[in-house]
């Protein structure tokens, strides 16, 4: 990075784009190789999160394992995009000022929703509970499906 020569005028003259002048050329970082490597990594990671739905995923009975895995994969992908494609890796310290408070606000906002929205089904009236979909409804539909299959099987024989 070259030190800007002392000047008393604005950094840009009319007709000149600010970004180009304010930025010393920094095409040195990145480069085709890095971007392609990140692209391949992103594709691999997408395939990995998709794996949880394939028959080869061993933790089918514990969905929480899959969720944690997919969130880890997503965070890794997000990090790759932010660091390399959005050039945050090569930015100065202002990046922390903008991203960390925003991220903290985002997490805080989500947590603040939990008491009212997350726990809503613990506080509803008995009457409302009557009209809410419950796991028992899905179980009932499954029993109906099994019964229908059985009759269809009998009719087929």
């Amino acid at each position, binding site marked *: 990075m070259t030190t800007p020569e002392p000047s008393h005028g604005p950094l840009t003259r009319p007709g000149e784009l600010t970004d180009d002048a304010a930025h010393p050329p920094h095409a040195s970082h990145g480069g085709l190789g890095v971007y392609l490597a990140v*692209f391949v990594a992103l594709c691999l990671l997408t395939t990995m999160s998709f794996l949880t739905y394939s028959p080869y995923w061993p933790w089918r009975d514990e969905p929480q394992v899959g969720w944690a895995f997919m969130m880890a994969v997503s965070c890794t992908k997000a990090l790759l995009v932010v660091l390399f494609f959005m050039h945050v890796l090569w930015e100065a310290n202002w990046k922390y000022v903008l991203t960390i408070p925003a991220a903290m606000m985002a997490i805080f906002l989500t947590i603040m929703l939990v008491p009212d929205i997350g726990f809503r089904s613990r506080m509803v009236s008995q009457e409302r509970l009557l009209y809410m979909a419950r796991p028992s409804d899905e179980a009932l539909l499954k029993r109906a499906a099994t019964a229908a299959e059985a009759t269809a099987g009998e009719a087929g024989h």
Partner: protein
Amino acid sequence: MSSSAFAADTPFGHDDHGHDDHGHVALQYQPGLPLSRGKLIMWLFLSTEIMFFAALLGSYVVLRFGALQWPKPHHVHLSEPIGAFNTFVLICSSVTVVLALEAARANRAGLAKLWMVVTLLLGMLFLGVKGYEYAAKFDHGIYPAKPLGRIYEKPDLYYASAVRERLKDPLVLEKIAELEAASEADLTAEQVAGRKSLADIRRLVMDPDQQAFDIAVVADQVMPLPAEGPGGGHDAGHAHGLNDTFDWLRLPAVIPGGNMWASTYFLLTGFHAVHVVVGLIVFAVLLGYQLGPAAAGMIENAGLYWHFVDLVWIFLFPLLYLF
């Protein structure tokens, strides 16, 4: 006047007497942030966007895990391969934006324009696939709200009465009469079986002594909940119901938790799609410029926005399609 106004801004205050500069103020440049104003504004905008989508995604997660019942992806006819394909499309478009920026910096305006066109096409492909997915939801009566939506939360009396109402529709009655008059030779095996099951459910919903289980049987015949679990393929988990056999029937269907799912799904993907549309407009405008080094700043800012849109989808895809 101007000199004193500047003097007040110096760290040494306004009193410059006693110095040798005879009233001339030694101005000290305080460097601002080491980034251009355009990029600073874009990042400030993006930080508000982070909070905007965090609110949407956060509410979705909290709603989903606070719900007593939430539909599986197959219950709402989501196809994981299509979602994964769209993820791939967006990742590719992110790469092409980066390549356009690199080309512009290297003063290869033609190449930059080419990559920009590819980005635009990929964005359109994403929207096209999204539209196809939306159409599949609409076909199954999944809309964000009631007048069009035909999704019921549970197989109860309200559902049974909605089915009865639909079966009383003159147009439906006409079609049913046609179907019953048709000879078996004119119908496919599926339609013959469908005709029988349609007669069954008409009897069941009219039956004054129907039990909860009977209504569940009706719901299962209309639109069965596909079996969950492995299979991977699109059609593996897609069970065929009366609504699929006869496209004119359009009976109300039961998807436990389906209405809240539809609200969140359309809100999240809708806002994301709006962002994609805005990005495409920006790219289309950029195509009108000479994409040389002078335009690198613009391309970089548009790219930052586009990568953010990609970022949101990176979280949306697993949350909506795989959870």
